């Protein structure tokens, strides 16, 4: 018996519709989505100014952890290379070398569609990045403060003892693409809670803190920052990894939204109202 069936069988009244997301949650959700999108694309443009990642306080240029670059082949053609540690992968067409607007291969860390602005421009990319970084921080602070105050995070996101016990079952349900119905659908499942908690408590704060560690002013104000993250260059590497962690979350988020019913899910994050999917036992109990 799945958790969904168990809840449906317990006989609790299941509403047809549910006001799931408060106005503040909806507004902060969309501001957050826009901010992260702009931050990712402008961040990738900034990365092009030094397309390598390092570990430690200073950049050991001869030993990058990651490096994306262009090399010349025997015939003089451009070859895109992505180096991770000591191993190199040919990534022509995507990383290191990609086609420009007229279809010619050029040496470029990322393709033009992945950066903001589409052309290489560190100064403008930084302008975009820091404006939306402030937006992300103020928006995130409003979300956390309000939703802690109204106990949304404690009540709806924090794991309960039952949640922890339900982890194996939830993993099986996710693998079989089975989505909760009835009463279970009025609550977040445990993997969903873990994913949201990871974003709001680990990935986004991690982005902000590693971002601040790259600021020489902030390192003077809070020397604990470079100490915690193992140096400015390690912080930059972590900043990059957290960013891809958020991209991974976004992909799973989109897949789950489509599987769970895109119209209903989108309606709920726009209007707040979520239609509770009926379980089979609900039909029988009527």
């Amino acid at each position: 018996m799945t958790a969904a069936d168990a809840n449906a069988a317990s006989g609790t009244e299941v509403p047809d519709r549910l006001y799931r997301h408060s106005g503040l949650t909806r507004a902060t959700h969309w501001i957050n989505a826009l901010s992260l999108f702009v931050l990712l694309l402008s961040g990738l443009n900034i990365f092009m100014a030094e397309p390598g990642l390092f570990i430690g306080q200073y950049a050991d240029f001869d030993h990058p952890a990651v490096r994306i670059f262009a090399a010349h082949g025997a015939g003089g053609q451009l070859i895109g290379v992505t180096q991770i540690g000591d191993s190199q992968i040919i990534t022509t067409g995507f990383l290191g070398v990609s086609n420009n607007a007229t279809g010619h291969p050029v040496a470029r860390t990322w393709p033009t569609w992945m950066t903001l602005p589409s052309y290489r421009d560190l100064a403008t990319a930084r302008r975009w990045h820091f404006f939306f970084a402030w937006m992300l921080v103020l928006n995130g602070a409003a979300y956390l403060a309000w939703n802690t105050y109204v106990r949304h995070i404690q009540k709806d996101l924090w794991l309960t003892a039952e949640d922890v016990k339900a982890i194996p079952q939830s993993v099986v349900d996710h693998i079989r693409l089975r989505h909760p119905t009835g009463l279970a659908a009025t609550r977040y499942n445990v993997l969903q809670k873990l994913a949201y908690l990871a974003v709001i408590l680990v990935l986004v704060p991690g982005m902000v803190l590693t971002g601040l560690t790259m600021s020489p002013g902030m390192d003077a104000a809070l020397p604990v920052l470079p100490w915690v993250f193992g140096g400015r260059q390690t912080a930059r590497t972590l900043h990059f990894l957290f960013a891809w962690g958020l991209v991974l979350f976004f992909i799973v988020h989109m897949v789950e939204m489509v599987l769970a019913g895109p119209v209903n899910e989108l309606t709920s994050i726009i209007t707040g109202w979520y239609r509770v999917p009926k379980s089979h036992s609900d039909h029988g109990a009527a």
Partner: protein
Amino acid sequence: MSDAPILSQIRTAALARRNWLKAGLASLGGLWLAGCDQLSNNATAIKVLESAEGLTRRAQRLVLSPGQLAPEFKPGDISPNFKANGSVDPQDTAYRAHVANGFADWRLSIEGLVQHPMKLSLADLKARKSRTQITRHDCVEGWSCIGQWTGAPLADLIREAGLKPEAKFLVFHCMDTMGGGGEDNRYYESIALADVFHPQTILAYEMNGAPLAVPHGAPVRLRVERHLGYKQAKYLERIEAVASLEGLHGGKGGYWPDRGYEWYAGI
């Protein structure tokens, strides 16, 4: 085969749908890119985006007490190869002449809104009290290098020259021309008084225990820790106290700030 036309029809339809989807996605993507690129070149949009700089400056000044030091490191932390960036071998005639005679005729002028303008030789600078610090140089591009710097604290020199009350900034005029252009491409930078009187702000003439080499700004460069690399003006020849940055070059207070980078380089 009898079903071949149907299969090919299905294939054609699938291909058409795929092409339509690809074209649709491409044009949506293109629209987004074109939109962002247009905003990036729109004066109002840039003004809005630039407003974040004021917020950053105020927030950092709030959390940074005036005397708060940038982290200092141990000799073992020094980068084995400290990257030289920007101008690394200026070809300006006057500068070449200084290099040729070992900076014997070079003088650093402290002028503008000061009570007692000064002209200092390298020996004059070295005769004064010095400070040695091992600090991290953070380039706006994202990399960092650690080096040891020895130089004369700027605060002492400025107290000696005596700032006039209307002075708000110090401007550092350099001897190198960026990108081979004319006077307009001469490198310069400026800092606020809060940074002028910071204990780690020095006029460095030694790097890693040796006289400052040409790629790193010989004979003297500014070290203003707590700021990015482009603030650390090299090849100094003139320090000017001013009330406003508006009349200088592009009016934004520095070679890179005139080209879209933040004047407040603490981030």
